[in-house]
């Protein structure tokens, strides 16, 4: 009798046990299907389309599109822009995080808001402000022209616009990280006789290296992929002032779909690589710093 009661109990339990803090099986299944369907529909399919369309005319055409001179020039320009913008942003990020995390001064909130600014500004406006600053009708325009300095519709302008859009990434990763780490380690180093630079190099840098890497990853992905801001300042001169995203646009507007998707596929692969490294780093030093404010 006891044994029977026990069997009935256990079986009934498996069904009811779900109730306290989980939904019923049917609901769970339904929600999971909806979530997966939405993600596949809106996120995964576009990714697949890029790869499929790029290879639509075969691997040969794919490679040809990539080694075409204008395409190569675009790739080169993208790399150059990133190679300039990212290191500058790293220096800025470290400087800003150092000032904010290691010292107490008035106006910190304003500073962090300013650093967040590019995130709330449309990329087109980011490009526009430089056109207004350096363009024909501006104060600086004639002065620059008379000195033979071209910023707009040339590489410097593209670099500037890219910097505008990407400088918060490194700073936003480092600031909370360094704030959390506090000043104790550096103070200890100083008490042992280290100079400021030594403290930074041997104590701070190793402490922040994963956060820094993470910020650089995001910064780089955005720098190479920026479209709106760069489009406004670039002048769209083929082979000279076109980054990869701009080149994709030109090819697409000329109905040269395979080539457009071929170049796009490189960017997509970059995106996937970024995601993979990002996930790896998150597993390494925790989701908490990654999940907040983007």
């Amino acid at each position, binding site marked *: 009798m006891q044994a029977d009661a026990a069997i009935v109990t256990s079986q009934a339990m498996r069904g009811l046990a779900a109730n306290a803090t989980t939904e019923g099986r049917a609901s769970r299944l339904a929600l999971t299907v909806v979530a997966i369907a939405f993600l596949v529909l809106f996120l995964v399919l*576009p990714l697949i389309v890029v790869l499929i369309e790029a290879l639509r005319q075969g691997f040969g055409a794919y490679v040809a599109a990539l080694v075409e001179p204008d395409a190569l020039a675009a790739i080169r320009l993208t790399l150059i822009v990133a190679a300039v913008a990212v290191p500058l942003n790293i220096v800025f990020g470290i400087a800003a995080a150092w000032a904010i995390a290691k*010292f107490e001064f*008035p106006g910190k909130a304003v500073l962090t808001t300013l650093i967040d600014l590019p995130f709330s500004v449309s990329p087109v406006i980011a490009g526009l402000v430089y056109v*207004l600053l350096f363009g024909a009708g501006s104060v600086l325009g004639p002065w620059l022209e008379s000195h033979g300095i071209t910023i707009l519709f040339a590489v410097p302008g593209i670099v500037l616009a890219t910097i505008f859009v990407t400088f918060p990434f490194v700073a936003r990763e480092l600031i909370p990280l360094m704030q959390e780490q506090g000043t104790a380690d550096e103070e200890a180093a100083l008490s042992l006789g280290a100079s400021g630079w030594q403290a930074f190099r041997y104590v701070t840098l190793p402490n922040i290296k994963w956060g820094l890497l993470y910020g650089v990853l995001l910064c780089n992905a955005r720098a190479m*992929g920026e479209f*709106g801001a760069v489009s406004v300042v670039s002048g769209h001169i083929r082979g000279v002032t076109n980054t990869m995203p701009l080149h994709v646009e030109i090819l697409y507007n000329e109905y040269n*779909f395979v080539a457009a998707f071929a170049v796009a596929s490189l960017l997509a692969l970059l995106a996937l690589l970024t995601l993979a490294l990002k996930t790896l780093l998150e597993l390494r030093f925790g989701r908490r710093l990654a999940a*907040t404010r*983007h």
Partner: protein
Amino acid sequence: MAATATLDRWRLRKPSVIPGFGMALGFTLSYLAAIVLIPLAGLAWRSASLGWDEFWAIATERRTLNALQISFGASLIAATVNAIFGVVIAWVLTRYRFPGRRVLDAIVDLPFALPTAVAGIALTSLYAPNGWLGGLLAPLGIKVAFTPLGIVVALIFIGLPFVVRTVQPVMAEIDREIEEAAATLGASRWTTIGRVIMPTLAPAILTGFALAFARAVGEYGSVIFIAGNIPYVSEIAPLLIVIRLEEFDYAGATALAAIMLVISFAMLLLINLIQVWSRRRFGHAS
């Protein structure tokens, strides 16, 4: 040097033995000034120099108003869709275990990592009348590409991670004991979700919605390919700015940009207010 003189007056609240304050802050401020503040000031000055009457005239032009309407309308719809499905996705990713969950979790960040132009042409290709999805919808009489609906689809793509990533950490932190308490008090599962869990998530959902909305309003690259860009019908505000620039109508571009900036800052303020309010109401999150 002027910079250091200013910094000397800007006293540290607490003296610190750590060196480098002047240099770090100085560099930071200079960088910010050069990259952000001066150019933005230039924009402000330019729009101010328009004079109020001309500014108002441009702002209330039919084409301007339509562009703003389309941008904001589509962004609102997209952000709402993202708020709903984003919560579902965050729930499934946080609470359930199934094979491939980690991969899906990583994929959520795709719109952050993928260049907007690539997203733009991919979505257009998908939803064009002869595309994979466009082809399926055409017989039903639904056109997505080159219509305002296409804009909404692109903005949904762009905004999804904002909602999911804002809501996920809050969801993960919800103490199971709260749900158990509700159960012991007699609440059904749906009552618990509706009355106990959702209100706790409300600030995060609002914040995610606002972030997605703000991003969508300014979005350019992923929209212009799929939009159709027909003036008064499917032309978004950022595109109108670019068109005016190409026509050398600097005044027009500036005015529109100024309006959009003001609205962006208002959104930023709103987001910060939500967070302050929720912190005060509920105590701090953890």
